[in-house]
């Protein structure tokens, strides 16, 4: 139970998170409640094992990649701000945000940032391109033992062939965006939060 959890989150922090992520006040307190219930060690941060305790996530073939997205390079604990920042990518894009001031920085849940999030899940070594090896590894995670190496290899080859435009046998972020330009990213990479 949350018990006194929400009193540990100060109003100023809630305001800052609101500005950074766009979540509403009540959403932030609810998510804080969730954060503390996952934090079994009660030290204000989540480790990888805290996420793996969620059974539905543990059986997700890409569960490990999703968990990894919460942890910045080299770290293995995430605090509430980092947690919210990652979740913010999945906030739906509201109409009034589309007409915002173009000089303001890109909100975390814009189409570009959602695509960047997905790109980083493929890009295992964070070198800004998806190599054939990386694609194979992610594919292997998704299909398990059910598809042979050769077939998986040819699927990877074909995917890179379709996306690659500059002939370097890997997919850069711009090529990634081009391939997915017809996909309704706004809807497919968003969660409908209530309240």
């Amino acid at each position, binding site marked *: 139970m949350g018990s006194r959890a929400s009193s540990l989150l100060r109003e100023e922090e809630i305001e800052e998170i609101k500005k950074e992520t766009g979540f509403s006040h009540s959403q932030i307190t609810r998510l804080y409640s*969730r954060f503390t219930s996952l934090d079994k060690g009660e030290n204000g941060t989540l480790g990888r094992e805290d996420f793996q305790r969620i059974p539905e996530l543990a059986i997700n073939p890409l569960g490990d990649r999703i968990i990894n997205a919460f942890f910045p390079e080299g770290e293995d604990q995430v605090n509430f701000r980092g947690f919210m920042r990652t979740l913010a990518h*999945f906030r739906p894009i509201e109409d009034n945000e589309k007409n915002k001031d173009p000089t303001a920085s890109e909100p975390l849940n814009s189409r570009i940032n959602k695509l960047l999030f997905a790109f980083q899940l493929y890009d295992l070594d964070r070198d800004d391109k998806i190599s054939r090896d990386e694609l194979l590894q992610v594919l292997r995670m998704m299909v398990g033992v059910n598809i042979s190496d050769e077939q998986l290899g040819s699927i990877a080859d074909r*995917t890179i062939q379709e996306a690659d435009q500059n002939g370097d046998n890997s997919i850069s972020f711009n090529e990634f965006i081009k*391939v997915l330009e017809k996909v309704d990213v706004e809807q*497919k990479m968003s*969660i409908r939060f209530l309240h």
Partner: protein
Amino acid sequence: MEDFWAMVLAGLKVWVCLIVALLMVPAMFGFSLGISETYMKILVKILEWATLRIQTVNKAQQILKSSSFNSLVQRDDGSMEEELRGLRRSRPKPPVGGDFTLSDCFYFYRRGIEDIVEDEVTQRFSSEELVSWNLLTRTNIDFQYISLKLTMVWGLGVFIRYCILTPLRIMLASIGLTWLVIGTTAVGFLPNWRLKSWLSEWVHVMCYRICARGLSCTIHYHNKENRPRKGGICVANHTSPIDIVILCNDGCYAMVGQSHGGLMGVLQRAMARSCPHIWFERADMKDRHLVAKRLRDHVNDKTKLPILIFPEGTCINNTSVMMFKKGCFEIGGTIYPVAIKYDPQFGDAFWNSAKYNMVSYLLRMMTSWAIVCNVWYLPAMHQQEGEDAVQFANRVKSVIAHQGGLVDLSWDGGLKRAKVKDIYREEQQKKYSSMVVGSEEDRSGNSD
């Protein structure tokens, strides 16, 4: 000085006489003096008043309480196939090789993030959150000063619960348990006449009634005509050790479990003297055949009491029913399902064994307002032709869930402590693979 002690002694005598007359005698003979009913009525009125006060103050201050009762996310209940088909609509299907697109992963990412925000399983292992505060500190999610009157009522409540009710309850519980040990041991010395079993049942029920008063339990039994009979197996959803007290107030059951040492061991051995229970050594519990054999022997002997089993294997927070272990459904006896639903307004009965040990749990029970619950006896069920134990177990589980208004989950209650088995992830991978390369039948159909 002596006058003072004489007064104290006299006071104690009066106190004990009151306890015996007002609580123990009705418990022994099964009638009620209406004291607890009056207490409950007053309590309900006070809680309603408190809820109203909190709501009016919240409205006045325009505090938008995020209702933790509802979900945080609205999910698309589409299957993997539907979702992936939707994702792939924007490109033509490739002729051969494998149907994969870079956007396939969106489905898994979204599901994963939804599960991080809110999942069906981990919430079952902690106490349910209440819709409105019930004047107990432990359920207060957002401490906020509402009004002086409310704080005073809360303070009065604390005083009554801790200083008046708790000592009374502790005394009753100890009397109940001591009497159980003495009574069952005494009955155990009698030879095996019919009188022995009748006496044994009476002693058991009486002691459980005293224990129930010791927790201020108010139990409503429904459909008593379906009560479990001898030679059957009674299965129920599990929320706390108090479930046993609740069920045994209205009938006698044979218990199944691990034999413990210490106080529990004394209790277990005493109970076993007056009528047969099934206690296992820790090592024997792993031997499934041995367990099944002993259960089967007990069930086949029609003079023995119905066995009480909780197939979930662990305590769940009474908002859902989790996977039933198939062991007792393979025996072949008649299954009597029972649904138990506690009213969380008066006291949270769930035992969170990770957070509280048995003693602190019992103290929490004794410092709540009361334990109120409903027990539904459901019609007997048998394993049908062509139905295996797992299907039978699921059928019984859904009947219990439906009656108790609980969510029917197939997740294993053991996930409280253990990791989920890899086989479930492999199922997901297999499902996805069939969407990439087609199922076995498609492939064999297309091969040359």
